[in-house]
Structures are given as structure tokens and as C-alpha cells.
């Protein structure tokens, strides 16, 4: 078993209901390092339409910004795309004991996948709501009796939600889940991972964290990713927060009028930027976005298609788009952030692409940290080469 991984991946066939645990070859990690590069290989080997989840070697470690798991989609024509799954999902997914999950086929009835403690099951999901991704999360957490379970859920739209947070899925992962009759992917991680040099790893991580905090300065909240004019239209902010092991609190909690969800955590800068350009009442922006998110709609281009005013978004019926969303390679979840080698490397290592795109980072530091964790010398050039698979 390589350090920083458990050495197993799951092959889930929803058509047959089979869940197979497979060994992750050391050579695969040796060559591709991890993250979306390994997911790409697993999906390529399957060759048909499928989705996947996975983590990078640094996901869930004390490395700055190392909170990302990744969701991947492969279409029948072989095109692929990847999006980061943030908050605590990377850590929790990694500590389930499964490094990567490949999902294919279609279940005859609605189901959800439940992973924890190196156990994975396909569970009957007939009772889960079909048009409310947040409701899916609430129902699974209640049914399994643990409010800390992480739930990726689908709804009528293209975009999946993580727990009660949407806006990160610009690749149609939610649409693919719906097509498989897969209402949710739930997981809870309680395992422990081995590091090669734990003391040196923590010292290096702390050194990097200290440098990164200085770079961030006073930036905080989703408003820090918007123009001043757009930020001024977003009302009801309560406080800001970051994902696991991230010094940049780029998300914000907003008050809502819904007693079932008194606060809404927003990382969806793209939709907020689009809404802030629409005519209508500022006070309705959060309500409109909440409604769209629960229906699985969050991308800014979708909002532009469906309505003319913010009031319309609150009142008009919303429906699934007829066309599949265009796959866009590596979704960095942030309008204004351009693709870069550093972001591609983040999709290998488990580092948030927004963090890398907005704050920036020195790859040499991450390579040094990875070498300490995994127990062999890995250079930034090695990481760049592994990331070439994603271009």
C-alpha cells in the first residue's frame, strides 16, 4: 500500500447491483500520482459512459488548500471532465478507505451509494425526493443517523449538490447521476492514513501555511470574488468560512427565509455574478439561488437562459435543460480564473483549483511536501507530467 492512499478502489455496477473492491496498483500511483489522472485511467479502461470520484495524495492532509476530492464524468464519445468537491468531502471520502470510485450502469429503481469504514453498499433510494437535492441529503442523514455524513445528490437539473452546497458542478455530474437513477452518493470517513515522514511533513505544511496566510491578507467571503458592484447587491451575509485545511475563507453563509434551512452556504461565485447582473430585487437573490440549487441548477449560463428577472427565477417553473452541458475539462469553479499548469497540478494532488487560481502557490513547495508524505522524491516536473494526461 503506498503512503497517503489505502490502495483500494471501488468498481460499482448499478445495472447488476455489484460492488467490487479492487487493488490499486502501486505502479499506477507511481506514474500518475493520484487525483483526476488516476480517475481518467480508470474511466478510460472501463471505456463506456461512467462517473468517478477520487482524491489526490495531499487531500485531507494539513497542506494549504488540500480539501479537494474530484468528481469525473466520461461520456460515450470518450470526452471527460472533472470538478472539485470541496468543504470536508475530500477528507471524508479519502478516509472511507476507498481511494477511487468508478460508477457505471443504470439501476432499475432509485438508489444511493453508502460508503464508510471500507464498506460500500447500494441502498434503496425510492423514498428520496427526486426534485430536491438538499432533501436527499437531509433524508440520507436522517436515515443513517449521522448529520456528519457527506452527501453528493442529484435533482432535476445538471448540477449535483454536496450536502446543502451547490455551484461546484459545472460538468453535469448531477445529470449523469440522474441518468443512472442514482439519487445520492453518501460517505463518512473514519479511517487513518500513513505518512512516510509525519513530523517533517507537518513542519513543512506549517511553513507553507504560514506563507499562504500572508498572501491572503484581508480577503474573505464570496464577495471577495465578485466585483464591488455585484458584491453590493448580495444581502444577508452572516459569516465566512473556508474548507478543510484552507486559510482562505472564500465562502459565506447567508440568511434565508426558509425555516428548514435558516442559512445557506454559498461558494457559487459564478451564479452570484450572473444574478447580480440581472434586473430585479436584491433581496430575492439568495431566495432565487436557493431554489435553483435545490433543483440542480446553478451554472451562470443556465440562469441566463431561463429567465429575465430575479423575480422570474423565484416564481417560474424550472425544468431540466434539453441539451447535455458541454464538458469543459477541468472546472475551476470560479469565473475569471483561467486554466493554468498549477490548477492542473491541483487536480492531481487534491488542492482546490479556486485557491490555486486566486491565491496561487509554488509547486516546488507542494512537491516537497508530497515527497515527505509519500516517501519518495517527486518533483514539480513529475506532477506536471502526470497532469498532461488531463489536457
Amino acid at each position: 500500500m503506498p503512503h497517503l492512499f489505502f490502495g483500494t478502489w471501488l468498481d460499482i455496477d448499478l445495472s447488476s447491483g455489484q460492488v467490487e473492491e479492487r487493488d490499486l496498483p502501486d505502479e499506477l500511483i507511481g506514474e500518475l500520482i493520484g487525483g483526476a489522472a488516476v480517475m481518467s485511467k480508470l474511466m478510460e479502461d472501463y471505456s463506456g459512459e461512467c462517473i468517478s470520484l477520487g482524491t489526490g495524495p495531499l487531500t485531507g492532509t494539513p497542506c494549504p488548500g488540500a480539501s479537494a476530492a474530484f468528481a469525473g464524468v466520461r461520456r460515450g464519445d470518450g470526452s471527460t471532465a472533472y470538478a472539485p468537491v470541496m468543504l470536508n468531502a475530500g477528507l471524508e471520502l479519502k478516509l472511507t478507505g476507498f481511494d477511487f470510485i468508478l460508477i457505471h450502469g443504470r439501476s432499475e429503481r432509485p438508489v444511493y451509494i453508502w460508503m464508510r469504514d471500507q464498506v460500500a453498499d447500494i441502498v434503496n433510494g425510492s423514498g428520496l425526493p427526486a426534485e430536491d437535492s438538499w432533501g436527499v441529503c437531509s433524508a440520507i442523514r436522517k436515515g443513517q443517523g449521522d448529520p456528519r455524513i457527506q452527501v453528493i445528490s442529484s435533482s432535476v437539473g445538471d448540477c449535483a449538490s454536496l450536502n446543502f452546497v451547490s455551484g461546484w458542478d459545472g460538468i453535469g455530474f448531477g445529470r449523469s447521476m440522474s441518468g443512472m437513477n442514482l439519487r445520492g452518493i453518501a460517505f463518512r470517513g473514519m479511517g487513518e492514513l500513513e505518512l512516510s515522514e509525519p513530523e517533517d511533513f507537518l513542519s513543512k505544511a506549517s511553513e507553507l501555511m504560514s506563507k499562504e496566510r500572508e498572501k491572503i491578507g484581508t480577503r474573505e467571503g464570496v464577495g471577495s470574488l465578485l466585483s464591488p458592484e455585484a458584491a453590493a447587491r448580495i444581502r444577508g451575509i452572516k459569516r465566512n468560512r473556508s474548507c478543510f485545511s484552507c486559510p482562505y475563507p472564500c465562502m459565506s453563509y447567508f440568511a434565508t427565509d426558509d425555516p428548514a434551512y435558516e442559512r445557506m452556504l454559498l461558494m457559487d461565485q459564478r451564479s452570484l455574478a450572473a444574478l447580480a447582473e440581472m434586473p430585479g430585487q436584491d433581496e430575492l437573490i439568495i431566495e432565487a439561488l436557493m431554489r435553483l440549487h435545490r433543483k440542480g441548477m446553478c451554472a451562470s449560463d443556465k440562469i441566463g437562459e431561463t429567465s429575465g428577472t430575479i423575480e422570474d427565477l423565484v416564481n417560474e417553473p424550472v425544468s431540466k435543460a434539453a441539451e447535455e452541458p458541454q464538458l469543459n475539462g477541468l472546472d475551476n469553479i470560479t469565473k475569471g480564473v483561467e486554466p493554468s499548469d498549477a490548477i492542473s497540478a491541483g487536480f492531481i494532488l487534491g488542492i482546490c483549483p479556486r485557491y490555486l487560481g486566486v491565491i496561487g502557490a509554488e509547486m516546488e513547495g507542494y512537491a516537497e511536501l508530497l515527497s515527505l508524505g509519500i516517501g519518495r522524491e517527486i518533483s514539480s516536473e513529475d506532477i506536471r507530467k502526470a497532469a498532461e494526461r488531463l489536457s
Partner: protein
Amino acid sequence: MASSIMFHIEEERGYFGIIVKREGGELMLGKPEGVEVARPGEISGGSASAKPITMRPACDMCGGDPKCVAYCPGKALEEVE
């Protein structure tokens, strides 16, 4: 960092804190209400989802340079006398 655990109360939104086992066995609780020092057994409640704090090694401040303070992403921790 093995001498500490995070805790929170489900029923109270946003209620998080940290317990550190100090040398001598006493427990220091950093809570939203403030800092409290207690002996093992004086703290009630909590779930068993983490290794019990009393079974953990005591904090030796990493020899004078606490790693948790150096690492803390949000600078929520600081070293005081």
C-alpha cells in the same frame, strides 16, 4: 496535535471547540463561552466518535514551538503564558 480533539454540540449551531490534554492530566477546553480547565471525569456528555481525550498523550507544547499554532489555517490558536 495528538493531545487534542475537536468537539461540537449538535443542538447548538456553530458550537465548536477544542480540548487539549495538558501535562499533569488536566484538560483545557477552548469553548465559545471562554476557556475552562477541568480534571478528567468533570466533563460530561459528548459522543464516542473520537479517541477519548484521556487516552491521548499530554501536550508537551512540541518542545516550545507548538505545531498546532504554526499550522492553524485560520490563526484561531495562539500561544499564551
